[in-house]
């Protein structure tokens, strides 16, 4: 996941579910914001880099290292904001130079990737950075540690390592990691600030449309899920009602004999189907009907026992609905 200097935090831990992407981007854009905004979700992070209100980078990365940028990253961000139900947004203001370095780190040209430090001449590399007046970021890392050196026109702007929250002026941590066995480097470069300023993703993408589309898809998914759940629930209720109906028929049949099933069927059809069994008023009517018919067939004592058993069965069954 991304580990970036925090600079000057403007907002931290804002709940993403309460935010709308077009509004957020519009605010950052109209406020000529320079820095980056991170959207942290359970299994992924999206970084948006702004330079004077222009969205110069958008990068998505998930837990497995899968990355997307530009339009794709913005679309995924909109989807995540709409669907995730959790997540936080942070906004950090950075200097123009550092923002440029962040851009380099995220989307710049890769000059070196996973290069083992012991195999390269670090002094000549640093000389090249200076001589070529590179803008970018040199990342030195091992399996457990990481440090970054940001450069502007070949000169180091500052040092950043895991465990710190902001740019430092001391190179000691970077040197320490460089001295560790198995240390590797990545070198990312980017264009100058002026050239980056020519990019504005907000101008080439219709954020509102991306957002609306994500909302519509999510709404449709929710409706489908809700419909599926309703259908499942209805089916489940229907199965349980059928089981209850059978139970009632067995009880009535036990006391009344084989005509018991017919009596139950008739009373159920007169009281709106087997759903009346779990409706208080409906069950009273149903029971009265069964009792009335049973009076012609069985003794008062057995009617009393049957009614008690039916009441017990219905009370038990109701707790399951």
């Amino acid at each position, binding site marked *: 996941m991304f580990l970036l200097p925090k600079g000057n935090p403007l907002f931290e831990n804002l709940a993403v579910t309460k935010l709308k992407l077009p509004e957020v981007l519009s605010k950052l854009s109209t406020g000529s914001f320079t820095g980056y905004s991170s959207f942290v979700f359970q299994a992924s992070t999206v970084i948006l880099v702004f330079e004077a209100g222009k969205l110069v980078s958008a990068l998505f990365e998930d837990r497995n290292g899968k990355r997307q940028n530009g339009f794709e990253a913005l679309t995924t961000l909109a989807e995540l904001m709409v669907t995730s139900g959790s997540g936080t947004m942070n906004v950090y203001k950075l200097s123009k130079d550092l923002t440029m370095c962040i851009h380099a780190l995220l989307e710049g040209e890769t000059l070196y990737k996973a290069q083992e430090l012991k195999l390269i001449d670090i002094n000549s590399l640093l000389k090249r950075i200076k001589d070529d007046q590179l803008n970018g970021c040199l990342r030195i890392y091992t399996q457990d540690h990481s440090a970054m050196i940001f450069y502007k026109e070949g000169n180091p702007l500052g040092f950043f390592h895991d465990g710190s929250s902001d740019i430092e002026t001391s190179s000691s941590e970077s040197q320490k990691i460089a001295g560790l066995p198995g240390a590797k480097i990545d070198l990312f470069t980017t264009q100058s600030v002026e050239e980056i300023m020519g990019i504005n993703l907000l101008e080439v993408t219709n954020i509102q449309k991306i957002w609306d589309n994500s909302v519509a898809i999510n709404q449709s998914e929710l409706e489908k899920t809700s419909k599926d759940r309703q259908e499942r629930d209805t089916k489940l209720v229907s199965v349980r009602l059928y089981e209850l109906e059978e139970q009632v028929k067995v009880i009535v049949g036990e006391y009344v004999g084989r005509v018991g099933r017919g009596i139950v069927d*008739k009373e159920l059809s007169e009281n709106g189907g087997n759903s009346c069994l779990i409706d208080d008023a409906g069950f009273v009517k149903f029971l009265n009907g069964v009792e009335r018919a049973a009076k012609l*067939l069985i003794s008062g004592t057995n009617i009393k026992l049957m009614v008690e058993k039916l009441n017990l069965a219905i009370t038990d069954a109701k707790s399951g609905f």
Partner: protein
Amino acid sequence: MEKFIELITQMNSFDLIQVIFWGLAGAISFYFSIGNARVWTSISIGFFLIFLSQAYGINPWGHYQKLTAFHYIVGTVAIMMITHGFLEYYVFCRTFEISGNKLVVYMSTLGILAASAGFLIINPTPSPNTIRNIRMVENAIWVFLCVMNMELVRKIYLAIKGSDISKGFIAFGLVFLLIFLWRGSELYLQVFQWDRDWQDILTLMTDEVSDIDQYMGRVEFSREVRRYAGLLSGVSVGATFSYIYRLLK
């Protein structure tokens, strides 16, 4: 009261016992109709009416011919009520539908009896021959409806087999078999003009000669069947209602 006691003392003891048993059966069935479901009302009122129809022997005003005719009409209404009740019970067994109320049954019965009385009042006094005709019609209806009720009872029993009351319908089957024998033997005697009423008519009113002497064996047998089946019918009705009452308690 004196006339009533005189009538009772003049009555054949067998007929008197029969009337007493029908009285008990009528009381039990009427009591049964009060505390039970509506479908039983027609049946139990019907059996109660049998007692009324049989009670002409102890009726102090029984010598009034219109009243005698009324007794027989009541007997016809009785079997129609019973059949109506069993039909309703059969419909209930097939559809589980229970409709109507007891008051309507009581009022309808009273209405039919009042209409029958009115019919007798507005018509000439019936001759002994007319009364015998009415009695024969009554017996014919009884015989026909007893056969029908036996079939109904069989179907009801098969439909409700397993319920508390189902065995009570076997008892009703026996009741209708006994009534069939009772009324059937009486109808048999009437159809062949071997009944006592016709013999009296012959003796008092015509010069005709009866062939009864030639068939005395079957006549006596039919008379005995009529007597014992009539008595046992009353006993069986009372016992059946008591049994059903116990089953439904």
